[in-house]
């Protein structure tokens, strides 16, 4: 099932079900919010509607957007030919919509785009308002755009980016310059060896082909080691899970959403409602997140991860002082088969090795032709230019 709610058959933009549209149920892929109707629309949705883009529908997502690409949705996983697929990316790949808005909190829309062979751009943290996103990992999650090509991605991103006073982390610029140039001959690209080595052969082949295409355009391509990837992976796991735990705690069965039928007291109401309504991955994330935030562990887990985030940012800046972009796989595989639920937490953690650096640093990333490009903050133009030059 691609859509949770179809809104307008003539609409050209799909919106992930973790992003609110006034009056349209928003489940975030969870039984917990099966009947939740928001009172307001996300800022990104408002901006699109104001600019004349009609919304096609709410795209099915994994529970709270925490999984690989939609397989934990309470409405059922989205698959294409027996392989996992993200609904937004699949809709774009099918030509059903021009673009899809997705929340990148732990790489799901990047993996989905890589699998579907479409583009996805996660812009710099703070450039697109998070107002109206059903929040998990506030310090890194960001709305991005899935589209068939770099031009479409740029068109939609231009509309949704810009300051929003309703989001305290929204950056002050009203508009961003995403102008592109197909001349990439002066660009210096670095292939991240650590990520390349960890990917399957068919993924490696895509990177190789992309590197050759860039060289043919005159860009220089070098191989570097990206040691920060594993530090970013662990630290982001801790920050992401802790913040998710905290944000999901409001879903307690008291005010809205799912409430267990039988309970003797308030504690039972909480425990039963949450136990019955949430899936395995959400629960695993909550348990992990509660543990790393415990008083006895705070210093060596959450606080340390904040310090690691700063180091990772500094190291990434050093790399981007020398290179315009990093070229790397977006995922270990070119195709993901449904897996055992019990493996979910480890599976997602393993894949976040490829996506965590942009997640934890807030730097932009783009998926195109099955590969991932990363750049320094506010360098979306670099990503779009590279993508466009290889696409044409």
């Amino acid at each position: 099932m691609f859509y949770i709610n179809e809104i307008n058959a003539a609409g050209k933009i799909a919106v992930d079900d973790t992003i609110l549209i006034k009056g349209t149920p928003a489940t975030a892929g969870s039984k917990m919010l099966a009947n939740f109707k928001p009172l307001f629309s996300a800022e990104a949705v408002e901006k699109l509607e104001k600019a004349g883009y009609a919304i096609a529908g709410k795209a099915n997502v994994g529970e709270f957007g925490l999984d690989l690409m939609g397989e934990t949705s309470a409405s059922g996983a989205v698959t294409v030919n027996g392989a996992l697929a993200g609904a937004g990316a699949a809709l774009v790949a099918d030509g059903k919509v021009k673009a899809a808005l997705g929340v990148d909190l732990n790489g799901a829309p990047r993996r989905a785009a890589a699998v579907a062979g479409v583009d996805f751009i996660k812009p710099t943290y703070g450039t697109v308002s998070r107002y109206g996103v059903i929040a998990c990992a506030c310090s890194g999650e960001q709305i991005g755009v899935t589209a068939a090509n770099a031009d479409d991605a740029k068109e939609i991103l231009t509309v949704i980016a810009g300051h929003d006073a309703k989001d305290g982390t929204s950056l002050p610029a009203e508009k961003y310059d995403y102008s592109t140039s197909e001349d990439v001959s002066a660009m210096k690209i670095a292939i991240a060896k650590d990520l390349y080595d960890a990917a399957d052969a068919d993924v490696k082949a895509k990177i190789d082909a992309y590197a050759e295409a860039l060289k043919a355009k005159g860009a220089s391509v070098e191989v570097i080691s990206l040691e920060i990837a594993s530090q970013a992976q662990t630290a982001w796991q801790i920050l992401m899970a802790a913040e998710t735990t905290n944000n999901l705690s409001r879903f307690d069965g008291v005010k809205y959403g799912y409430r267990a039928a039988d309970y003797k007291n308030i504690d039972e109401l909480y425990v039963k409602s949450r136990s019955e309504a949430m899936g395995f991955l959400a629960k695993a994330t909550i348990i992990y997140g509660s543990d790393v935030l415990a008083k006895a562990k705070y210093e060596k887990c959450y606080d340390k991860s904040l310090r690691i985030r700063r180091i990772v940012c500094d190291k990434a800046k050093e790399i981007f002082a020398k290179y315009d972009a990093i070229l790397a796989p977006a995922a270990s595989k070119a195709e993901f088969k449904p897996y055992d639920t019990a493996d979910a937490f480890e599976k997602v953690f393993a894949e976040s090795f490829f996506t965590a650096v942009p997640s934890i640093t807030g730097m932009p990333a783009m998926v195109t032709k099955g590969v991932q490009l990363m750049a320094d903050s506010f360098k979306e133009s670099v990503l779009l230019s590279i993508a466009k030059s290889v696409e044409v």
Partner: protein
Amino acid sequence: MKYELVIGLETHVELSTDSKLFCSCGGHSSPKEPNDCVCPACCGMPGMLPVTNKHAIELAVKAGFMLNCKINQYTTFDKKSYYYPDLPCAYQITQWFHPICVDGSVQIGERTIGIKQIHVEEDAGKLVHDEATNTSFVDYNRTSVPLIEIVSRPDFRSSDEVIAYLKNLKSSLQFAGISECEEGAMRCDVNISVRPEGSNELGVRSEIKNMSSLSEIKDAIEFEKVRHIDAIERHTEMLVQETRRWDDVKRRTFPMRNKETAADYRYFPDPNLMPIVIDDEWLAEIRASMPATADEKAMHYESMGIAAKEAAVLSSDRKLADTFDAVVATGRSPKVVASWILTECMGQMKRLELDSLDIEPAKLARIIELVESGEITRAAGKKVLSAVFENGVEVDAYCEENKLNAKVDEGFILETVRKVIAENEKVVADYKGGKVKALQALFGSVMKELRGTGSPDVIRAMLEKELN
């Protein structure tokens, strides 16, 4: 052996802002229907993000100045997690890692009370329990209303010091416009232990949670003092560090369930709220907007010729002082205004059992003006004041309706004087027999007949003339 108390206070005060701490709903509580001052943000709905109320930050800094604190120019908001139905997000946004004000002190008589810190946080909602249906209802009107928590050092040695500190705090906060400190808007947690006098070690500590009345606080401290000393001297119980609550009906404290106190709040910085940087310029602006403190006000009143004792009373309460300032500003004499407020207005407040003075300064000013110019008598003035307190009447219209004008027809006064003389033959005889005091009785009768309207001087002169 002699013992001394060691007490520290955590005082929660509601800030006087127009809106809540992180959304634009109306601010400090006033009587409303349940849940009519809420929005998706303060109801904990997904998708909403907090945006900090700048005025709340400024008021907290003012409180810091007032209590001689160091202002942390880099300050952060953090999340404190616990589940309770009155807390819609299941976390409270507070300041844990970098509170806005630290290391202050305040002088209470001879004693200096240290202030460990002041931090800003959001209030929780309210649960209403319906016994009949065994159901609880949630009211989120108070959710996210801004509070400051003022944490003292354990520097108090008696309940009297605690009460003096709280009274002083209340009047200072009201003066600076930081908090209205309305009934229930100032809540205290009291940390208390007992040790032999002269000892430097601390005894086992009890924390008595969430008290709002001064008498309750005093009684709870006195109760705990006896309980602790009994435990030490007579081994009546084994003291343990615990959280207790005061039961106002049973007049004693009880331990709270362990479950309520053994929580791990899982504090971490709120990623939705950027650290607040208070630069020197903003800090200077806030300092410049500080109003006079109560003490400064009192000194100012004394310089206007008000007696020290009266100045102290006037300056101790914001409503009294504001009314005084406003009436004096209309050109009335400060001494006269002080007397009207401290005697007549406070008399009315006592009669009507009012906690605070609530009179339009213009009305009080008009009453004083009429009395001072002799247009109505002081007795008539009191009558108008009483009507203003009771029904909020318009001063001039009321005087007219009730014929309070002192310049009533002199012929009518003379008629009344003659009537009173005719009806009181015995008193008149007494007066004529040399009993000077009898004149006062006749004067009183005339005043009574005229319902306080005639000028006393005119009446007295006419009486003397008619009798002689």
